[in-house]
């Protein structure tokens, strides 16, 4: 359940002069150096950390998990690489079956032919498995890139110079169903105009390869995949109240080719 977000109204465009005026006002606010008492306090805390580390003892204080920026484990990073390869293609073919905690029934139902490909994989994306779960979108990205590359004579086995179709031979994931505008609207009460605004807010310069109407950490969410530079991919998970004013960003992940 989400509530309307503050400031969901459209924001007026500023002239360059107005933008500059706001910037100048913000930049002109003074902030002094770190106060000595704060510096001393931090120095003491770090010395305690260093002492407990050198003593080989576990640190007596534990920073609450909620206060620690999201950190990926080594395992997650390894899986990220696997997922990245599976999602984005490459010379090394990595299966996506190992990633398959999606219980989605993945059947191609290409009934929408919108500029933005919206699919419904049924995936319950989680923070811990997000990178690996993205592999479920490989076929959808493949559809888009195949369409883009269709006139270029792309060699599917060797085309690693472009953000091209995923090559997951031997373990090709099932295609995810493409859904209609009406489906998204009914599922999330999300008008397509709002979706388009959201997508422009995430990346005003290009359209996404695919939008997956799914969930993230049990919250209804859209997972949006953009082609980035140098064959990389930008993947966003946003809440369904994503708007031009506030994307309600739940997760951002750069996947490197």
């Amino acid at each position, binding site marked *: 359940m989400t509530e309307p977000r503050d400031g969901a109204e459209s924001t007026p465009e*500023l002239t360059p002069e107005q933008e500059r005026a706001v910037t100048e006002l913000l930049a002109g606010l003074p902030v002094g150096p770190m106060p000595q008492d704060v510096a001393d306090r931090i120095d003491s805390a770090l010395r305690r950390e260093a002492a407990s580390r050198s003593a080989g003892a576990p640190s007596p204080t534990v920073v609450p998990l909620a206060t620690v920026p999201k950190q990926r484990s080594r395992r997650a990073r390894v899986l990220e690489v696997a997922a990245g390869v599976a999602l984005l293609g490459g010379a090394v073919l990595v299966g996506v079956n190992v990633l398959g905690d999606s219980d989605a029934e993945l059947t191609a139902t290409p009934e929408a032919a919108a500029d933005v490909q919206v699919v419904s994989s049924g995936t319950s994306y989680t923070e811990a498995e997000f990178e690996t779960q993205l592999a479920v979108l490989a076929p959808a990205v493949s559809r888009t890139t195949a369409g883009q590359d269709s006139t270029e004579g792309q060699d599917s086995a060797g085309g690693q110079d472009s953000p091209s179709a995923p090559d997951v031979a031997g373990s090709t994931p099932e295609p995810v169903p493409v859904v209609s505008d009406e489906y998204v609207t009914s599922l999330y009460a999300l008008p397509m105009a709002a979706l388009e605004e959201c997508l422009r807010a995430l990346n005003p310069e290009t359209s996404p390869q695919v939008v997956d109407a799914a969930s993230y950490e049990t919250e209804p969410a859209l997972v949006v995949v953009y082609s980035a530079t140098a064959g990389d991919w930008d993947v966003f998970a946003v809440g369904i109240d994503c708007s031009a004013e506030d994307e309600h960003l739940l997760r951002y992940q750069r996947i490197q080719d």
Partner: protein
Amino acid sequence: MTDPTDAELLAAHVAGDAEAFSVLVRRHSDRLWAVALRTLGDREEAADALQEALISAFRRADSFRGDAAVTTWLHRIVVNACLDRVRRRKARPTVAMPEDAPTWAERTDRLGQVDTALAVREALETLPDEQHAALVLVDMQGYSVADAAQILQIPEGTVKSRCSRGRARLLPLLQAIRNPDAGPGVGTEADRESRGGQS
């Protein structure tokens, strides 16, 4: 003999040097403090967030992959710690303002001038967290959009978009600061439309 680089200090810390991390922190302390203070707007909370973030960085220094500058990595940890606090603060039940609390206009009348820094801070706090953080880095701290994108781990286009939308939301509030005589009507939709028609 030249000073060690940030990366060398971090490597020394990971290797067991007991002083290296403190040297690294002192080198960047003022900028990290400014980011924390400008994001949180409260001295004590900024100090807590910074300490928390730096201890976290101390413990997980071996996770630094070298795909960004050390200072970018440190800023990222500090910004995330601050945003976590902002979100927790917003999630807490708010205390209703007493009915006799001065309004903006009343405060302006009493003081004759608005405390600009305080007013801007209050205006910033009305923004969505992500826009606030982007403006702190780009407009207040002077980072390039590219650097801010690395710190926030979002694409440059998203940083630009957040900054633009944040500035647009701030404009009417900041106009009221610069021109308090105009009263609370400054920045209304009608006013904006009127200005837009002239530009």
